[in-house]
């Protein structure tokens, strides 16, 4: 299965800009399905970005983050070719990880 995480990290001088898009339903637990039954909450709780053995960005999410979440941030101290590890865990114990090269 293709990874649920799509990430693009581009270094421009000392600053690396990271954009990540994750495929996840982010169900709030308030929405009903076609049969009128509540869809249980299913959402990413924590998303982590690590570079050179250090956390560079940690997101704690609730159900109010949109479906297929997108996030963008920048950090210093990395260069082209460095690895950026992205991982998430959700409230049902699901998780995914990807390692991207900074370009």
């Amino acid at each position, binding site marked *: 299965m293709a990874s649920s995480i799509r990430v693009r990290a581009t270094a421009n001088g000392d*600053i690396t800009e990271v954009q990540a898009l994750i495929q996840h339903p982010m169900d*709030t637990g*308030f*929405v*009903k399905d076609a049969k009128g039954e509540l869809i249980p909450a299913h959402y990413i*709780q*924590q998303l*982590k970005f690590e570079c050179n053995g*250090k*956390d*560079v*960005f*940690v*997101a*704690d*999410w*609730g*159900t*109010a*983050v*949109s*479906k297929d*979440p*997108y*996030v*963008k*941030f*920048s*950090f*210093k*101290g990395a260069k082209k070719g460095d690895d950026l590890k992205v991982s998430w865990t959700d409230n049902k114990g699901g998780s995914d990880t990807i390692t991207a090269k900074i370009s």
Partner: protein
Amino acid sequence: MTTLPGPTATRRLILQGAASVALLGLGNLPFGAAPARAAANDKYPEEAFKQKSEADAIKALYGQTAEPSDKVKLDAPEIAENGGVVPISVTTTLDKVTSISFFVAENPSALAASYTIPEGTIPAVANRLKMAKTTNVVAIVEADGKLYSATKEVKVTVGGCGG
């Protein structure tokens, strides 16, 4: 839960519950007094996400209140046609930023997202949030142990919490 063997067991359970609540309560105090949420403590803030009102959520997450600051720039649309996907971003010129959080005042639970900003990371985040209806979006920036906020009202034409 299955049937319990007798009243003693029930009582023990209740006592255990009370004890853990008391422990939690005590545990919160030092966090409230110290410079808010320690950056190293990256445990998921379950309690803060459960709070309904914005004030309670801020209190549960940081243990203090925020003051409005023009150094926090919150960028959100005036009108969101689809409350399910509202692009919201925040930037700040403040120094020593350790975290940035987003609150949507009238969502079922106010805290939407909280980001830890370690040293070396630029204090700016863009993301997309759900909004149940027209309400205030509040961004909170934790810098040097203090909280600064920016608020903006976003009009929502179709809410993000229905079908």
